[in-house]
């Protein structure tokens, strides 16, 4: 099947303007005749819901938590990028575009990334107008910091809680539309099925998590803003309920899943410390601005960190990458930490941790300055580990954090299923094979505030308002399917819990499809996942019934989809016979252990199509064309 | 007027009413205490002060009516708030501990308040509505405080007043929106001093009278 990315003609910097002009408009008075279903209330979902409602569309918004404000965007710490060049340090749209393309190891679309960089400035304006309390300088102007592999200071932040503040801004805008009755908010709902009528997305099936009731919702378009699949690794920095179910339902209904093997492993997380552990906590990578990463030079050195003199320390990032030092992109930092630990230099109880040391920064700037910058992060670290990072170095280790892959979308953010739009982390569009720090918030809000309001109009204007209703047979069939899956899960009554199986799945993927991959391991993992899926469907136990509040049943449904998704992840990883960004196949490395791309054969987006149960997914390729940048080997030396 | 009623009938409005009337009574306590201090100078000074007050004539009546109205407002609003607050948590905790915010004064506000209603009524009956034809106010005071039971009762009542204002004084400022990092320590210190002065100032009078007169 051919994929049309609908990238507009013309020079890069004019594409978006030209496209906006070309898009059809919906007459203001007609907008109220359209209903848009938005699934998810994070940055992308909340901003899209609010913006569409402001335009006059009827919006129904769904979230699984008790309030739209709880979406996991809230946990983003470090900041949001924008090409404002307020610091007069040479930033520009072109530079943000180039950094993002390069950071993504040349596996993203030029046109999408350029548009993102163009829009970035509007986002900051919008958020400030909403009352987001960004950090400011003494003079009252906005403060910036340099972040995650950027050599300019373009990151706006609100202490270590930027995601929270941006989400609360979007949540405020959403709340305003709920009060105005333009948005109907459905909280504590799981989306369990996508409904297609004549091949177009026309509705969803949800479960009311309190009553267990199965609900049918009809709309003229469906917008998925359901986040990423990082929890497939079980241990990740994602929230406990983050899941891939909505995306997988769409995939099984024909939407393509793009680049699932691009999973970002974040370098600065609190290390694993026990079997019971439920999640890994991220320590913002802004810490790398002042912290120095090191391990003992001699493997097995068991001295306390403060007793190890400088000549016995190996500041591996600074030594290997003199110009970027501790600020190399996430994938590079993560892989190097793993490399050191694999070589036996790791620290901590498990040997899978490296030090992040603030001693020098505290000596240079004083404890007050460091406290002002990172106080809340240090406090959080101390709460979790009972170690005081002002006195002893932090221990960090990489953890699954973000999914660059996601449902395939075109330039309009519409998937190959007409009427199904995908925003934010749930789509694959802008980060290529690796996302730069402080770019996720930028993308989520760009999609929701400034892209979907235009592009959805283009689709709806061409489509006309729908005559579909919930009595349509497609809804009945979808609901019956959902009920049947739940009945099956409840009837197994085996001997293992969902968490137990999920944990095992996570371990398989982390070991064989984590920071470094090889063909042999991937094949092994495919078998293991297959066996585990059988184990799940024959030996899982789910207590309770489907017609009540049942958290175990919710979990079971999610684990079932993660198991299916794992196949896709492994398939994509093994078919990409190159290394790029976060995807490192050990067979394809440079002499310096960097990812070695194969631009001749793999400069494409891998968009996987569902072929049926237990059938191998079908690969569709969207070639990536680079007209404005020259593909180069990334080097952060 | 409707905006005023509307404003004052909200939860925050009711707290404003409590704050304003409460602070009014704090002022009253100061004036009352200053007057009472003349007792230490003996009968003549005290009766002279009483005569001065009575000479104010209608002004005193106005003040009394005002106080009565404020008292009714303070008490009814307080009871209303207490009732609403009680109803706001129909199922109580099986185990409940303070996180460190509450003080003796704040936790007992409604109870000390109710005790004070009865005290004020008894106090008015014993002093204000006593027979003023055949005896001077000083006579009434010295007679009353010759009984150790009355002295004990007054001392306890004054402790209750001190506890009540220890929270009420600071709380009134908070309710009126006066809380500023610069001035807050001063307000809190003043509240402590105020409750000590009121408690000790009023409480020592009966003791002094019973021991030395």
């Amino acid at each position, binding site marked *: 099947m051919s994929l049309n990315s609908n990238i507009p003609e013309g020079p890069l910097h004019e594409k978006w303007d030209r496209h906006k002009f070309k898009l059809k408009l919906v007459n203001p008075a007609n907008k109220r005749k359209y209903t848009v279903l938005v699934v998810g209330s994070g940055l992308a979902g909340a901003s899209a819901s609010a*913006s569409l409602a402001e335009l006059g569309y009827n919006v129904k918004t769904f979230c699984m*938590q008790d309030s739209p*404000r709880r979406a996991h965007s809230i*946990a983003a710490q470090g900041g949001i990028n924008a090409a404002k060049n307020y610091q007069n340090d040479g930033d520009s749209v072109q530079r943000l575009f180039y950094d993002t393309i390069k950071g993504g190891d040349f596996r993203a679309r030029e046109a999408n990334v350029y548009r993102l960089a163009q829009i970035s400035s509007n986002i900051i*304006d919008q958020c*400030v107008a*909403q*009352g987001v*309390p960004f*950090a*400011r300088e003494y*003079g*009252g102007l*906005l403060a910036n910091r340099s972040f995650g592999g950027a050599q300019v200071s373009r990151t706006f932040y*609100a*202490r270590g*809680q930027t995601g*929270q*503040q941006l989400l609360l801004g979007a949540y*405020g*805008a959403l709340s305003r539309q709920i009060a105005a009755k333009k948005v109907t908010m459905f*909280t504590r709902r799981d989306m369990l099925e996508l409904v297609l009528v004549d091949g177009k997305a026309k509705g969803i099936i949800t479960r009311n998590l309190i009553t267990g009731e199965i609900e049918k919702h009809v709309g003229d378009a469906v917008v998925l803003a359901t986040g990423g699949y990082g929890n497939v690794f079980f241990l990740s920095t994602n929230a406990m309920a983050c899941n891939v179910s909505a995306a997988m339902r769409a995939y099984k209904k024909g939407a393509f899943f793009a680049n699932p093997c691009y999973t970002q492993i974040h370098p600065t997380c609190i290390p694993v410390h*026990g079997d*019971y552990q*439920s999640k890994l906590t991220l320590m913002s990578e802004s810490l790398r601005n002042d912290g120095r990463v090191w391990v003992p030079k001699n493997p097995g050195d068991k001295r306390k960190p403060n007793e190890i003199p400088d000549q016995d320390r190996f500041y591996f990032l600074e030594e290997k990458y003199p110009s970027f030092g501790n600020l190399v992109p996430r994938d590079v930092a993560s892989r190097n930490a793993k490399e050191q630990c694999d070589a036996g230099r790791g620290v901590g109880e498990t040997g899978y941790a490296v030090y992040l040391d603030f001693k020098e920064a505290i000596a240079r700037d004083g404890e007050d300055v460091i406290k002002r910058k990172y106080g809340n992060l240090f406090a*959080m670290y101390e*709460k979790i580990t009972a170690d005081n990072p002002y006195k002893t170095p932090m221990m960090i280790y990489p953890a699954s954090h973000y999914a660059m892959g996601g449902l395939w979308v075109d330039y309009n953010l519409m998937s190959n299923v007409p009427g199904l739009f995908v925003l934010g982390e749930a789509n694959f569009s802008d980060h290529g094979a690796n996302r730069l720090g402080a770019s996720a918030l930028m993308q989520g809000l760009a999609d929701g505030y*400034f892209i979907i309001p235009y592009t959805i109009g283009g689709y709806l204007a061409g489509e006309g308002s729908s005559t579909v209703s919930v009595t349509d047979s497609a809804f009945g069939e979808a609901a019956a399917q959902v009920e049947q899956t739940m009945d099956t899960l409840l009837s197994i009554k085996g001997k293992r*819990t969902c*968490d137990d199986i999920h944990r095992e799945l996570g371990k398989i993927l982390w070991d064989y499809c984590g920071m470094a991959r090889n063909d042999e391991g991937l094949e092994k993992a495919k078998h293991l996942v297959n066996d585990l899926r059988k184990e799940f469907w024959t030996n899982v*136990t789910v207590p309770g019934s489907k017609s009540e*509040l049942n958290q175990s049943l919710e979990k079971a449904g999610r684990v079932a989809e993660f198991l299916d998704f794992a196949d896709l992840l492994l398939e994509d990883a093994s078919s990409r016979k190159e290394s790029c960004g976060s995807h490192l196949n050990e067979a394809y490395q440079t002499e310096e252990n960097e990812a070695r791309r194969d631009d001749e054969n793999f400069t494409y987006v891998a968009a996987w199509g569902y072929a049926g149960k237990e059938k191998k997914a079908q690969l569709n390729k969207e070639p990536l064309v680079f007209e404005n940048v020259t593909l180069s080997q990334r080097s952060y030396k | 007027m409707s*905006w*005023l009623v509307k404003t004052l009938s*909200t*939860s*925050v*409005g009711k*707290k404003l009413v409590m704050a304003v009337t409460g602070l009014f009574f704090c002022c009253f306590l100061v004036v009352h205490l200053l007057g009472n201090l003349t007792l230490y100078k003996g009968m003549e000074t005290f009766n002279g002060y009483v005569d001065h007050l009575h000479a104010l004539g209608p002004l005193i009546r106005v003040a009394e009516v005002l106080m009565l109205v404020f008292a009714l407002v303070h008490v009814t609003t307080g009871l209303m*708030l207490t009732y609403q*607050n009680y*109803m*706001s*948590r129909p*199922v109580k*905790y*099986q*185990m409940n501990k303070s*996180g460190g*915010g*509450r003080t003796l004064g*704040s936790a007992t506000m409604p109870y000390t308040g109710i005790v004070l209603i009865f005290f004020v009524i008894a106090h008015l009956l014993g002093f204000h509505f006593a027979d003023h034809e055949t005896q001077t106010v000083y006579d009434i005071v010295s007679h009353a405080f010759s009984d150790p039971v009355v002295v004990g009762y007054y001392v306890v009542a004054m402790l209750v007043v001190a506890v009540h204002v220890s*929270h009420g004084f600071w*709380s009134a400022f*908070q309710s*009126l*929106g006066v*809380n*500023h990092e610069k001035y*807050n320590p001063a307000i809190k210190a003043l509240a402590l001093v105020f409750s000590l002065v009121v408690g000790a100032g009023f409480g020592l009078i009966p003791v002094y009278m019973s021991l030395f007169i």
Partner: protein
Amino acid sequence: MTKTINLTLKVWRQKNSQAKGNLETYSAKNISTDMSFLEMMDVVNETLILEGKDPITFDHDCREGICGMCGAVVNGRAHGPEKGTTLCQLHMRHFSDGDVVVVEPFRSRAFKVLKDLMVDRSGLDQIIQAGGYVSVNTGGAQDANAIPVPQKIADKAMDAAECIGCGACVASCPNASAMLFVGAKVSQLALLPQGKPEAKERVVSMISKMDELGFGNCSNERECEAECPKNISIENIARLNREFIKAGVK
């Protein structure tokens, strides 16, 4: 270093919002002191599921203290005994072997118990819907640096904005009042120039919604401030009062 402890839990169990609930006793064995409180609950639940019993329902999500989803009253304290800590960030090293731990849901007339420890806090959303935002549509905002905001003001606004909406203030208030929650939002927006144009309508509308929902009245007991996992100051309640007076007088 890691050690393990055994605890006795007394947990509030309630089948649904209509049912009558009661405390049930469970034992939590071999709990690593490095676990968080919720991880300890996970362990208890895993055991219950394997025994074919109904696991304890509780709200939780991010498990890093920011989403505001978790919360329970542990031994009489909202989010447990540690100051400035959400339940998910409370670690078992703060408990001793043999402790009896009583776990109850956040209680308020406005927070209906849905099941076990899970409560309905949608009232807090309704209060925000009543005006806890700046009424600006997407697009058309002026340049972000057009209005300078003094750093001190921005910092104060941020102090207030840190609220995670968990409802611990309501749960710990002797009167189940939501004033700290409302005060934090009103303060954030009243401090910033962007929030000033509708400051008056905002405070009046949010307070009347709060009253309507059956939250109690503030009596300045400061329990909310003491239990707030984000250490939000009651200075924000004073500012709310001030804003309310301003709105009434003007």
